[in-house]
């Protein structure tokens, strides 16, 4: 983790390679920078260092100086300063760099140490890889292969510990596989702030367990599964569903709130099996809320809308509705749509000379990775100019206009209007054009229904609470009969008499870059994996609902007002 222009650099020598690293870096991270792997279990870059697994043992030494004069002692054989090697191995995770530190990771002593640690770890390990979900992404497997002895000398009986334990609603524990690294305990204590896990008993009988009467049931419990280096903690949802080596990984964004946590979607042949976090040190570190991991179930949900007619026929009917009520049309966009869709929605509203609004979705923020704003992309709508003010929770204005007979047609995009405060009678009074993936009261009342895609079936961008624009990629093919939102919106814009806009992302981004100054230099392909922070100053005066979360502090409203 080198921050640019880090002033306190320390030069160290790892396996003969010199590298300057920031002060405070430990040997594991320093070695990572020169592509040297120091195997480890208990160390995790985002947790405190405990140094209890001993897998990261290295040999280290410091340049020799004369104790009296402090003059360097030179080695006549090499002509360089002599290195005083410490005669026993040290742990790499707990050793921070110091100037001139020399490290050996391939010496016979290190090799012996690793073989010894691996042998001890495997003594009581059940070796049940064939039935273990971690197989294929297990550090114990990898490091036994890479650094182990390759055979077992253990003839005694292995320890027996509890298996198939439910630690909570989402996590299953197999104690025999646990290597007692304590990552899960530290995570619960330090990050989730829900200190429920601990070890009981001593020595090789040490057993991970929940404190009596407690459960691992906080909304971050599945992160312990991610960081468990072995198969001790497994996800109950993913348990025995599919081998990880069959799964395709697609980078995506968590859309449950405006945090925009980075995720990886794991799928095989069009079926999503799990969602895990993707490291982004500016957004979510290496964590992800449990609630974000079940969102994939919307793809194969029973209430997916089925296609009834061809898109062309539907567009023709929508166009007829648009013609029937010029000037009496409203567009309800969505804070859950992508930036591209919101851009096309804006074009649709302009072409229809209609007012455009979003529906806000506010919940309780958890100060970590779920923010108060449950719309992932309200800021995208601001940036693209779809809206000027923050969305209201209820569409009272629209309701009043419908009651007054001023609005005859409503285009609703992914939003259930009844949930947004419109009554069934009001819905019956207008003709609704609905775009969405799932059925709801609005789609039932709609005259024209386009069945569109869930976020896992399309690519696009979202702007999170930090005004960081991030991209999500299509993980699985579209459900049968569903049409890409961009295709539908582009055709609707054309049908409403607007410009002819491309539905293809690369081409559409050319238009977006030309029309939206804030995005002028961007293309979809060039957007970095970690996102790009946009200028937030034009919106500083808006009273955003988010409270503080990980890596986000809301601007002080007073300050915002002053700068506005």
């Amino acid at each position, binding site marked *: 983790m080198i921050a640019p222009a880090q002033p306190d650099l320390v030069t160290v020598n790892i396996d003969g390679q010199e590298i300057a690293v920031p002060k405070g870096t430990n040997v594991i991270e320093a070695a990572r920078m020169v592509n040297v792997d120091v195997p480890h279990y208990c160390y995790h870059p985002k947790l405190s260092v405990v140094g209890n697994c001993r897998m990261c043992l290295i040999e280290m030494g410091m340049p020799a100086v004369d104790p009296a004069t402090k003059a360097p002692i030179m080695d006549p054989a090499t002509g360089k300063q002599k290195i005083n090697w410490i005669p026993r191995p040290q742990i790499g995770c707990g050793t921070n760099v110091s100037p001139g530190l020399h490290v050996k990771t391939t010496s016979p002593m290190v090799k012996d140490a690793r073989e010894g640690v691996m042998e001890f770890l495997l003594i009581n390990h*059940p070796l049940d*890889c*064939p*039935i273990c979900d971690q*197989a294929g992404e297990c550090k114990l497997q990898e490091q036994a292969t890479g650094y182990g002895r390759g055979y077992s000398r253990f003839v005694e*009986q*292995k*320890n*027996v510990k509890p*298996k*198939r334990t439910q630690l909570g609603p989402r996590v299953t524990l197999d104690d025999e596989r646990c290597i007692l690294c304590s990552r899960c305990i530290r995570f619960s204590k330090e990050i989730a702030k829900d200190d429920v896990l601990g070890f009981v*008993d001593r020595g090789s*009988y040490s057993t991970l367990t929940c404190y009596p009467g407690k459960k691992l049931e906080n909304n971050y419990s599945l992160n312990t599964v991610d960081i468990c280096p072995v198969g001790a903690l497994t996800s109950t949802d993913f*348990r*025995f*569903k*599919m*081998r990880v*080596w*069959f799964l395709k990984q697609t980078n995506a964004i968590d859309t449950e709130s405006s945090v925009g946590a980075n995720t990886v979607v794991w799928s095989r042949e069009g079926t999503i099996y799990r969602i895990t976090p993707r490291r982004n040190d500016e957004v979510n570190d290496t964590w992800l809320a449990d609630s974000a991991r079940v969102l994939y179930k919307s793809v194969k949900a029973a209430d997916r809308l089925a296609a009834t007619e061809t898109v062309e026929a539907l567009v023709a009917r929508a166009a007829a509705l648009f013609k029937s009520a010029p000037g009496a049309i409203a567009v309800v966009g969505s804070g859950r749509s992508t930036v591209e869709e919101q851009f096309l929605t804006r074009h649709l509203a302009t072409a229809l000379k209609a007012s455009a609004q979003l529906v806000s979705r506010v919940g309780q923020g958890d100060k970590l990775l779920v923010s108060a704003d449950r719309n992932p992309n309200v800021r995208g709508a601001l940036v693209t100019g779809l809206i000027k003010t923050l969305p209201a929770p209820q569409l009272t204005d629209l309701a009043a206009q419908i009651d007054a007979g001023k609005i005859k047609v409503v285009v609703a995009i992914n939003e259930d209007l009844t949930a947004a405060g419109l009554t069934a009678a009001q819905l019956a009074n207008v003709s609704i054009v609905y775009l969405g993936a799932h059925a709801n009261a609005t789609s039932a009342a709609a005259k024209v229904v386009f069945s569109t895609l869930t976020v896992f079936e399309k690519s696009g961008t979202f702007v999170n609470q930090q005004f960081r624009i991030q991209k999500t990629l299509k993980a699985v093919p579209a459900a049968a009969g569903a049409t890409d939102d961009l295709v539908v919106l582009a055709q609707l814009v054309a049908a409403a008499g607007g410009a002819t806009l491309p539905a293809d992302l690369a081409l559409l981004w050319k238009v977006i870059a030309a029309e939206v100054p804030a995005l002028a230099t961007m293309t979809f392909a060039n957007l970095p994996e970690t996102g790009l922070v946009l200028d937030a100053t034009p919106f500083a005066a808006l009273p955003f609902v988010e409270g503080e979360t990980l890596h986000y502090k809301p601007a002080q409203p007073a300050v915002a007002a002053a700068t506005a």
Partner: protein
Amino acid sequence: MAVITVERKPLTFLERTYLPQIAGGLKTTFKHLIAPKKTLEYPEQRPAIPVGYRGVPTLVKDPNGREKCVSCQLCEFVCPPKAIRITPGEIPADQAERAHVEKGPQAFDIDMLRCIYCGLCQEVCPEEAIFLQNQFSMSGYTRAEMVNHKDRLYELGGTLPDAHHKWDKKKAAEEHGNAH
């Protein structure tokens, strides 16, 4: 290309009579008239299958009648023509005999139109649950018929002796407890 002219030698007198050739041919004929028969009345009669023959892949049970496959999906992974398709599943905790194994296949299909009889599945299986045995002829009228489902695979596989009793040992250890 060079042309080589081969000179044709004139036949000898004996060769021109054809008699030695006819006698030679008749000798072979009469030898086989009295020799033991080699042809088999297939399919009523079947050949003896040599050890190590790689026939249709099958799933086997252990001598206790327990399903050996734990649906680790290694065979599905290794199979070159992707003939194997497994849906893994959990063995419910209330099945006393098998619950300690935890995992077993819900569905197990081998598409015999794809299988190339390579034997890699047998080689990779950590549970010694899949074997290419003697069965060599498979036929069917439809593509669907050529897919062997789990029950058919067990029917073809039967029971094989097991030298390891891995899971029995596991259960014994669990019952012993090795507690402190």
